[in-house]
Structures are given as C-alpha cells and as structure tokens.
C-alpha cells in the first residue's frame, strides 16, 4: 500500500516538474518565503490573496501556478513559521497548507491562522490522511481536507468555494453592522472611529447642518461624504468647495453664480455651486478662512434657503444640506471677531470632531496596510506587509499631518522597497534618523490613568495579533486580569 502511494507520489512530482519547470519567474529562498518575483502582467484591482504552505518546493510551485492561472494573487511559504508571519502582515482570503510541516504542523497553523484572522479559510492537504485528523481539522475550523495527489480541477473548485464563503460572510457582517460602501473609506476600529460611524448613522436621517472639526489630514471630507451617502439626499449631488482657495469676488461667483453681464466677461448667466447642489449636499471645507462678507451671504442662504446670483436681484430657492469643516477653533475666531457667531451657531448644529491619528494609534497598522495595498496596485508591486521594526516606527510616530502624512510615508516606502516586506530603511530618512516628538493641540487635556491603560492594552493587543496570552505576557499581568480589564473596557474582539 505504502509502495503504491510512494510511486504515485513520485509520478506526481515528476509530472509537476515536467509541466512546470523552474523558470526565472519564481525565485526560491531556501528555508524561507518563496515569492513570485517581478510580475509579468499588471496586478488587477482587488485581486484575492491566497497563501500556499508546503515544505516540498515542487508541490508548492505547482499549486502556485494552478491558482495563479485562476487569477489569484498567490504567495508561498516553505514552513509554518513563515506562513504565520505572512498571515500577520497580509490579508489572505484562503490558506492552503500541507498537514505535515516542520516545527509547526498544518493543524497548528490552522489554529494560528484562525486566531490572527478568523475570516481566512484554511484548506488542509495531506498525503497521509486519516479520519481522526480530518475530524480534528474540521473541528478547528478548516474549510476542507484534501488527499494528495491533488487534481488541479479539484483544488480550483475548493479554493473558489472558500473564497465565495468568505466573501459572503464579510458581506453579511457588513450588512449586520449597517455599514455599506459609504463607510468603507473610513478605515479604523478604534473606539473614536466607532463613535464617529455610530454618529454618522444616527444623523443620517436628519437634515441638519454639520460642522466637522479636526486637524488637517484627519479625513473630514471622507466623513462628509459618508454623511451624504447615508442620508436621504444620497441621490443628489455632493459638491465639495474649499473656502480658502478663492478671493472674495471669486468665492461669491463660485458659490452663488452670476447673471449675464454681471462683470466683464460674463457673457451668459451661470448657476453657482449652491444652486447646482440643489437636492444634495454642499461641503464647505476650511470654512474658518471664509472672508467676512461671504459669511454674511452664506448666513442668508442658510436662513432663507435661497441664493441671489452675482449681478442678479431675483432669489432662487435652493434645497441643500451644508456640511462645513475647519481645522481652526471657530469659537476662538468668534471671540476675536473673525467669524460670525450667528453663522457659527447655524453651522454647528451637529458637531463632529475628527481625532488626530496620534490619538487613535491602534488604527495605524490597519491604515498602513490599506495604503500599502493601494500603492502596491498603483506601482504594480507585490509587498506583503511591514517588518516589525518598520511597523513599530510607523506606530510610534506622531503624525502632525495625520492620515495624509501616513499615506505619503507608505507611498514613499512602497516606491523604495525592493523586497516582499517594507523595511525600516524604506521609510523616509528624517523619521529613521531622528526621534520626533509631536505635540497635538489635544495634548493640553491630561488623560486619566484608565484612558492611558485602555489605549496601551489595545495597542499591545494589536501588536501581538490579538493573542491574549502573548499580550498578558507583554503587559506583565496574568490572563485572567487581562480578560477582566478587557471586559471592563468593553473591547470587542
């Protein structure tokens, strides 16, 4: 029986080596991660990532070729440890692993993968199958258990089923959470972002004006878009306008439009932005920089719900919702007489404050991965994640430019990186060479011990991939205490 199996296995390996000979497309790193080198065709948008784990290079390669032919983004690992590293740094839909591996068995890997990313489906492959291991694998959450030799059609079909199951599960969760595509651009799982998402849902049905405050680069416009897309006005237009970009006259023309012959060159009448957004939402960015005369005109629009074009006398009714945003302290500007108090109260019906990125550090790894995927697609590169040191540096930096700066740093890193992982030396020099302390305005408020403890525990959990035992070890407390604290702080898994 064993002889027969062994001969079949050798034939299988021979078949693979004949049909999938070594070529320059694959580079094999001994004992480590095996990566596809330069891509021959451009990476498509939203390609699904599959990780294949096997200690036999030939089997590994053939599986990679089979799945790549189906359009998957396939990464390979020669052992369980490397596979865990890859799963920690990437977002895989499916992991196909051999059952017998060095150090970490396929079943152990299954457990680790499920701990790191419960959504990832795991398919176990074995040449030494038994009913007991099949049952154990199923109990531990394996999607399928396959006997070697694998037929290409069979593995294709099973991986396809696994991807479909995962996609459906994610979609169901998204729907259960009431989060549609409007929220997909607001990345993060921190309590602050969860609060903002909740608030957006709560104010979706209302038609009140919204004032979004927060430092530059915190994502104010994304929130404004999300509010518009979840509101009954979503079928109307969303028009964004930067109030600091224009002079007084141009601002009036852009916002209110003009009548024919209102000024030299006005050969015909044209509606302004407020009229064009009728039935929709207008987003006024940097409203704190709006000149005084324009503030009075805007106040009139809000009160009367009508606009008068430049050079015109006839009011035109408009049905718009105004979402304003500023990085300035409007209350202080009101006190100094630089901003109209009545306009401030009209705009500040529903205040939304966007936190600094430094105040929600736990979102940095997720945001960094999001930008990494985006720029890998743009630059046609395959990078799986960040080294621990690089991620540590990204997490500890203060980000005076908030998310916009993080995006820029990741773009720089992707363009500099030549390997499968972003290393510290790929980050901008001024971050690696110097320690940078950043004091945000919110630093004025002293945090309570509980707030600091809560933030630190969350940060540690993120760093150790949500492994409680490891987190407890790092924090220097036992697991029971950690669970008690998690319950007290109401952390969601």
């Amino acid at each position, binding site marked *: 029986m064993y002889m027969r199996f062994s001969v079949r296995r050798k034939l299988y390996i021979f078949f693979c080596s004949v049909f999938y000979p070594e070529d320059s497309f694959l580079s094999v790193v001994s004992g480590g991660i095996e990566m596809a080198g330069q891509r021959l065709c451009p990476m498509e948008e939203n390609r699904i990532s599959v990780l294949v784990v096997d200690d036999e290079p030939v089997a590994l390669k053939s599986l990679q070729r089979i799945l790549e032919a189906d359009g998957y983004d396939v990464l390979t690992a020669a052992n369980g440890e490397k596979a865990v590293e890859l799963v920690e740094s990437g977002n895989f839909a499916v992991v196909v692993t051999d059952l017998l591996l060095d150090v970490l068995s396929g079943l152990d890997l299954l457990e680790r993968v499920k701990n790191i990313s419960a959504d990832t489906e795991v398919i176990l492959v074995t040449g030494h199958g038994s009913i007991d291991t099949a049952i154990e694998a199923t109990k531990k959450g394996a999607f399928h258990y396959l006997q070697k030799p694998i037929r290409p059609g069979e593995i294709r079909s099973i991986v396809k089923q696994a991807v479909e199951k995962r996609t459906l599960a994610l979609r169901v969760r998204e729907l259960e959470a009431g989060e549609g595509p409007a929220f997909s651009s607001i990345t993060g799982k921190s309590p602050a972002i969860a609060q903002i998402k909740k608030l957006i849902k709560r104010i979706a049905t209302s038609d009140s004006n919204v004032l979004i405050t927060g430092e530059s680069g915190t994502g104010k416009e994304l929130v404004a878009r999300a509010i518009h897309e979840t509101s009954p006005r979503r079928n109307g237009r969303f028009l964004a306008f930067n109030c*600091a*970009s224009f002079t007084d006259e141009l601002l009036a023309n852009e916002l209110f439009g003009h009548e024919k012959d209102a000024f030299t060159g006005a050969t015909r009448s044209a509606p302004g932005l407020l009229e064009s957004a009728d039935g929709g939402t207008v987003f006024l960015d940097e409203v704190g920089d709006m000149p005084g005369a324009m503030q009075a005109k805007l106040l009139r629009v809000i009160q009367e719900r009508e606009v008068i074009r430049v050079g015109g006398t006839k009011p035109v009714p408009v049905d718009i919702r105004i979402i304003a945003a500023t990085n300035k302290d409007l209350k202080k500007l009101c006190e100094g007489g630089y901003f109209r108090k009545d306009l401030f109260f009209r705009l500040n019906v529903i205040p939304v404050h966007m936190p600094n990125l430094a105040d929600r550090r736990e979102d940095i790894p997720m945001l960094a991965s999001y930008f990494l995927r985006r720029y890998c697609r743009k630059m046609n590169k395959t990078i799986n994640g960040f080294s621990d040191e690089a991620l540590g540096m990204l997490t500890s930096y203060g980000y*005076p430019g908030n998310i916009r700066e993080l995006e820029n740093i990741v773009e720089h890193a992707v363009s500099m990186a030549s390997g499968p992982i972003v290393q510290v030396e790929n980050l901008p020099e*001024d971050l690696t*060479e110097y320690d*940078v302390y950043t004091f945000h305005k919110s630093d004025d408020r002293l945090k309570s011990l509980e707030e600091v403890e809560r933030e630190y525990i969350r940060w540690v959990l993120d760093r150790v991939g949500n492994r409680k035992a490891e987190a407890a070890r790092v924090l220097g407390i036992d697991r029971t205490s950690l669970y008690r604290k998690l319950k007290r702080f109401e952390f969601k898994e």
Partner: protein
Amino acid sequence: MSPKWVLLVLEDGMVPEESLCHTIGLARRLGCSVSVLMLMEENVYGTPAGYEQGCKDLEQALDRIRSEGLDVRHSLEHGEKASGLLKHIALIPSLSALVWGGKEDIASTRKKRKGDHWFERVRPAVPCPIVSPRVRKTWPQGLGR
C-alpha cells in the same frame, strides 16, 4: 489654493541639522511651503549675538530647502522671542506644523521646566501640531550606528 506652511523656528543663529532635515521631509510629505523664522536676542549694544554667522548659516539652510524643490520664505526677528514668534504666526494664513529648532529640547523643556521657557508662554497660541526632532539615541534593528 492658498499655500499651507511648515514653520521652522530657529534661535540665535543656530540651525540644528535634525530640525532642518525633518522640516524638509515634513513639508514634502504634506505638500507645504516652508517658512523659516530666526529669533535673535539683542545684546547690550543692541545687536544680536552671533548675527553674522547666524545669517550665513540661515542662508545655507534656505539654499538647501530650495534645492529640495520647496518654496521657502524667511524672517529674522530681533528682540523678545515670544512676541516675535506670535507676530510671525499671525502673518501665516494656514499653518500645518511648527518644527522646533530652538536651543533647548522642547520635549524636556515641557516636562522639566514648564513655564520657565519663553516658548511655554506662547505654546497654547500655536494653532497647529508642534514637532520637536532630536538625534536618535537608539536605532531600530537593522539601522544600528
């Protein structure tokens, strides 16, 4: 579009490399122009100490910022530093970050001598994040010096 600015604050003719390097990096990442403010105290004779050397170093720093393709403007203020800084901030319409390049480390100034240092008096009036770079004492793995 009105330009956004990164303000580099320098003191008494000194241009620390770490502050200059980080200002350039930050301005490039945020798409900002750079404003360099040199604050100098006057001595008993009414002339700032180290004025000539300070001007020379400042000129070199400005050249370096320009060579990185960034827009730069500068200002030299003599006299009381706190009011010099406030006056300069008031003239900048949109400030994205203030990079501290002064003599004392602002992080330790804040912790140890809060209230003593002139910058602490004006810090609440700064309308943007304040950044204080300093030479790294420990390097991440793989970047040992």
